[in-house]
């Protein structure tokens, strides 16, 4: 029976490495679906999440993997379907959505449909940018909300100069600095727009802005997002470290089990001896 226990322990430890193997050899640079229909893409420097059809947030949420903590995911900007509208229709509540990946797994295509209106969001990653391309089957009036807690400046506008929601001059580039509240890191982000929008507005929240809204009238708009961390925060535990932690936990747990089992056996032997 000892051989069964030892084989089982080897099996437990071997399996505990599967998440790490997946992270290193399978998960890189392709859209992968999971959960109730969410998709994620891990490139060498960005992690992009596109949430499942039952959640209007993170459509997508673009994270950067900082060099000071490669497993950390620091959100640069989040597209929200909860608060975005096309022709007055809410992207989350008023459209049917289907999500598909391209054959090579490199492009995610979220298709929003309602009578008379079809809108695609194509999300693609290159080595240094993330592209979110919106294409409609006709010219539309769109209001897209981009969230980040918090942007300390947007196109050089700060909370000191814009204490209330403020329309800022339109351009094809939105540059912002941010302070990531969870990791305390400071970074910069840039969103390049393929066309000049009709309006860009910033919305104050606490010590900065927590969202930028972009309004445009067109059948197509591409948001090209890039970002980096300029001042590292504190490298701490992150969810991505779990892949390394699980084998350690497996080894510690089986060791504890073996110690308890040995102790129990010794006690049993002692009791048996005293009885005999």
């Amino acid at each position, binding site marked *: *029976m000892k051989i069964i226990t030892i084989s089982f322990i080897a099996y437990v430890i071997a399996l505990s490495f599967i998440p790490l193997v997946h992270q290193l050899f399978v998960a890189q640079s392709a859209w992968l679906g999971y959960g109730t229909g969410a998709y994620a893409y891990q490139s060498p420097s960005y992690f992009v999440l596109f949430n499942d059809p039952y959640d209007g947030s993170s459509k997508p949420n673009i994270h950067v993997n900082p060099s000071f903590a490669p497993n950390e995911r620091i959100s640069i900007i989040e597209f929200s379907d909860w608060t975005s509208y096309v022709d007055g229709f809410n992207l989350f509540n008023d459209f049917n959505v*289907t*999500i598909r990946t391209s054959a090579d797994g490199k492009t995610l295509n979220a298709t929003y449909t309602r009578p008379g209106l079809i809108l695609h969001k194509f999300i693609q990653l290159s080595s240094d940018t993330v592209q979110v391309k919106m294409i409609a089957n006709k010219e539309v009036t769109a209001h897209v909300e981009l969230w980040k807690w918090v942007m300390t400046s947007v196109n050089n506008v700060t909370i000191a100069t814009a204490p209330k929601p403020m329309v800022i001059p339109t351009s094809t580039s939105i540059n912002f600095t941010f302070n990531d509240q969870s990791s305390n890191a400071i970074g910069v982000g840039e969103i390049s727009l393929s066309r000049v929008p009709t309006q860009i507005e910033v919305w104050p929240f606490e010590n900065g802005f927590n969202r930028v809204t972009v309004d445009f009238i067109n059948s197509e708009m591409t948001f090209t997002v890039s970002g980096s961390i300029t001042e590292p925060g504190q490298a701490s535990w992150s969810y991505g470290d779990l892949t390394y932690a699980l084998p350690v936990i497996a080894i510690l747990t089986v060791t504890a089990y073996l110690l308890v089992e040995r102790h129990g056996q010794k006690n049993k032997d002692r009791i048996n001896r005293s009885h005999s």
Partner: protein
Amino acid sequence: MDKRIKIVLTALIVRVAIAPFFMHAGDLGTIYESSAIALNGGNLYNFVYQQTLQMQYATGLPIFFEGYAYHPLLIYFFVPFYWAYTLIAGPSPSIIGGHFPSLPVLIYPWALVAIFMLKIPIILADVAVVYILSGIDLKKAELYAFCPYIIFISVVWGMFDAIVAVFLLLSYLTFNDKSSYALSGFTYGLSLVKLYTIVLLPLYVVRLWGKWKDLGKFLFGLAVTLLPVAYYWIVSPISFWNVLVGFQGSRVMGGVNLYNFVWIIEDVRFDLQMSMIPTILLVISVAVIVLAYGRRLPLLEAILAVMLVSFVFGKVLNEQFLVSIFPLMLLCKKCDTRLWVAPFIFIFLRSPFYYFAIPILWSSPYFYDLYFQADTVWRNLQTAGYLMMPMYAVGVAFSLLLLWNLIQVLSVSRPAGGMLSRSLSRVIRILRK
């Protein structure tokens, strides 16, 4: 008062007092929704299959709607109580939604009545187990009646594994005293309301192999419970196959076991491929146990060995599954029943805060606000991965403890010299025939 009656009544009172105020949103919501569909003459499997198709169409992924994926008989345990509830509360729904990740909407006070009514069959099953055990050993009956884990699963969450437990216990008892093989087959068939006891069928067949008359009686009893299966197989074969076989066969591994590491791998196709490993091991291990030990062990130990090995190697082991064999474990001298502590701890690590007291939390804006505050803390811990580490440790520990119990149970048989080779030669002989 007779001590036996005292235990049974106390077990009943404890359960009735707790029942209306708690629920597992997903599972009890499924029973509520399914009872309504069944009472209105709807086809449960068509409903679940349509939801699955919708999810698969929306996401392009091989994922399944987690609804009614049980034996058709199960819902008939609940429908009479749901019907009685509608007589009191009327036909308007009082529990709306609740399939993960959505939160349910509850209509007061009727939601509390619905929750209570739907828990009655579970409470009766629990009390029946206590009654049967108390006829054998009062101490064991007490352990079952007041075990926090059993109470939590049955009446806090409202999961129906106690129904599996009582029928499995009856099947064992009637088989063991040779009183009625037909009744044993019938009660075994009823225990299949949750499909994980299917692994015991080869064991029963092996035990009766050669006693053709008894085997015939057993299979007849079993066949009676399969009539609804035959009905759905004829009227909606695609839905039925997809919901029962497709869903159960294509589930991603995980639960209170060593396989829950898969929850951190964000890739459902890879997860499904990995889930083949435990499925293959399950088939092999059950075959080996049945063939090598099926007739050599006493029946109780043989049943426990097969169930334990299916829990060790089976890909899905939810917190509540242990309830089904807990009465049998109490009867077995070799088992350590303190094992329940592991799934009980796991419940608190895995489940969102609202799973513990929805009817109370949803009853006032003040409580609802408290829920949001607590839930924020819980979600922060979860998204940081802090809960996953203890969950994995508990899963591995529970698998090891199950294995330990399995080895203890197997030790009841004679020393196993050349056991594997004998079992393999037995397989070859059967194949030749």
